């Protein structure tokens, strides 16, 4: 099964190796990892996606916590969350196919960010299935995809959940109780629809 973890880690040399090495040791393949800044200075946020047996989630999370540079871990797969990925796709074009691809890009609410005589570059953001949807259509249309660069999944839990990093690092607000940390298992009906992931057609336009 696919597990998704969000880990807050110290922004220091070698931390990525330590996290990666943990998965290596457990012989678990990381299917995607994204690392970048977070709401706290000197703390990076990683989203890790890995295929592992269902029961492995606890072990991975507990093992991540054993790393000194890991501040917080969340097994976000268990919660309602928003998942996004950014992809750059370079497609071969001819004068005949170009306008059709532009149309496709519009339907997917993607953008064309570079135009060259024989190719164009599409920037698309969305759920993985949306990106795969676009790629599928391009393939079905026999447009030649020249290059794909995908960032991998980044995930954030929905609603009122705020990173416990604030609390762990002794943030004043959280001590005053201003930052609530509910364990959101299920959200109210209207909120669920409000944040519905399907901001766009999946698979087929």
């Amino acid at each position, binding site marked *: 099964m696919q597990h998704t973890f969000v880990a807050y880690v110290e922004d220091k040399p070698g931390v990525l190796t330590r996290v990666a090495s943990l998965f290596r040791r457990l012989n678990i393949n990381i299917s995607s990892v994204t690392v970048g800044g977070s709401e706290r200075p000197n703390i990076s946020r990683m989203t890790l996606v890995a295929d592992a047996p269902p029961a492995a989630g606890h072990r991975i999370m507990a093992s991540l916590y054993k790393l000194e540079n890991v501040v*917080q871990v969340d097994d976000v797969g268990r919660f309602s969350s928003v998942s996004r990925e950014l992809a750059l796709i370079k497609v071969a074009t001819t004068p005949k196919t170009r306008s059709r691809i532009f149309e496709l890009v519009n339907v997917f609410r993607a953008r064309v960010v570079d135009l060259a005589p024989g190719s164009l570059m599409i920037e698309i953001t969305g759920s993985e299935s949306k990106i795969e949807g676009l790629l599928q259509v391009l393939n079905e249309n026999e447009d030649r995809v020249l290059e794909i660069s995908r960032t991998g999944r980044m995930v954030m839990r929905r609603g009122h959940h705020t990173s416990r990093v604030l609390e*762990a690092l002794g943030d004043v607000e959280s001590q005053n109780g201003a930052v609530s940390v509910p364990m959101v298992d299920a959200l109210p009906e209207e909120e669920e629809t409000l944040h519905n992931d399907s901001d766009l057609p999946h698979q087929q336009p």
Partner: protein
Amino acid sequence: MSTQEHTRLTGAEIIWATLEGEGVREVFGYPGGAILPAYDALRKFPIRHILVRHEQSAVHMADGYARASGRVGVAIATSGPGATNMVTGIATAMLDSIPVVCITGQVGSKVLGTDAFQEVDITGITLPVTKHNYVVTRAEDIAPVLRDAFRVANSGRPGPVLVDITKDAQQATAEFDFAAAAPGKLGAHPMLSVAEQGIAEAAELILTAKRPLILAGHGIIQSGAMSQVRALAERAQIPVACTLLGLGSFPASHKLNLGMMGMHGESWVNHSIQEADLLIACGMRFDDRVTGSLATYAPKAKKIHIDIDPSEINKNVAVQVSLIGDLATVLDQLLPRIRTRDGAAWLHSIDRMKGDAAVRDIKNLPDNGHLYAAHVINDLWHATSGDALITTDVGQHQMWEAQYYKHEQPRSLITSGGLGTMGFALPAAIGAKIACPGKEVWAIAGDGGFQMTSPELATIVQEKLDINIAIINNGYLGMIRQWQETFYEKNYECSPIFSPDFVKLAEAFGIRAAAVATRSEVMKTVEAARTHKGPFLINFMVEQEDTVYPMIVPGAALHEMIRRPSANPLIETASDV
């Protein structure tokens, strides 16, 4: 040098000043180019340096020091080969969760990554075998990093930490403020929590169990939870089985102590586990050497697992209740809910399981002229009244020690359990003796393992240490031979091993020594070693093809052990007592 003043020191001085501030009085090490600035500054500090003969031994000594005293052990080495030699010692400490801080010199920060002379990526190499490691390239970072290293090594589930300090960081100067370098306040570990509900569930299971059993592990000693475990066992009349590293956590002579569990545990101990309806695992990790086949492990038992490391929960054995936290603290929460309980029926049925196994024991056989390792260990136990601190290597002698030396006190057996490191006993004994100079220390090793670290005899002499050494010499790599006998049709490939004359070898180092080949000589030679002021080595020439029983074949169920032969085939004249 006072650690309170804010003085400007070199990085080298900061290393020692920080160690002094952390309460370190002894370190084990070996100098070399990249750590020379530190050695140059050593004379200014009240720290004893024990010069080892190999850096692996330096870590084993720091490890033995930590296991004997409960304090963090410190080992120091140079870059490159000095650092790589430490790796086996570090892994040994990692697998047994021992707090050790290793300091290595490193080439100058300007040439890091250039394959400079004696440069090696030691933090990369030791990443999977340390709890954490650090590279320090600036003098001002040395004190905070070293202090953090001590915190990491000694907190939660302890473990080894390595701090790699570049030569230029040792040579530069910086303000030194020990107090200001203290590790920052840490948030609570979110997975470390014992809910009141878990305590209540555990208490309910304990009070309703018919056949409960405590599995006593190393965590009891690490946490200092001996009295709590004893209180639990005595109040609810629960028998106790120990892991190898748990020996000493519960007095061997206590009527509730069944003995060691696992691959070479006594038959009734393993049968009790298989028959139990509740296992209370205290600071142990269901290692494959104690469970046998997981599919058939303790099939009738519910399990309560108390451990400080959340990643151990449900790792090998699925449990019904897990209490994650410091064992002593958890048991303090649990004990008020435990009422006295009548355990007579269960204890009686365990006694029945003992049957004749308890008496059909090699140590009870009359002297027939053969010398068995079991006799040696049993006599050593009698001679030392069970009060000695014993270190062992890995293998047959280790198992015989665990079976026949009855440990009453925690920290009285120091052995490489998880990694099973040959050559551990001698350097670990040195570390233990440095930590506890008043203790009688015996290193017990096989003829194979002893040869792996025997140069440390010179360290014993140079440091004037009163350590006794017992070599259980059977001319084989004994446990290898036993496996070849059992699983490889007695194809004794590469297990017969030549040894030098250990008596002459010891004498060459200036160590008194004697050889013993008959049982009648054992006691008086052990007494001679004990009364001799200074180190003493005894070469026990034991039966060559003796086997450790009982034995559970790897992968077999815990109750399917190979028992001791009713009459040992090697003892032609002995009758079964």
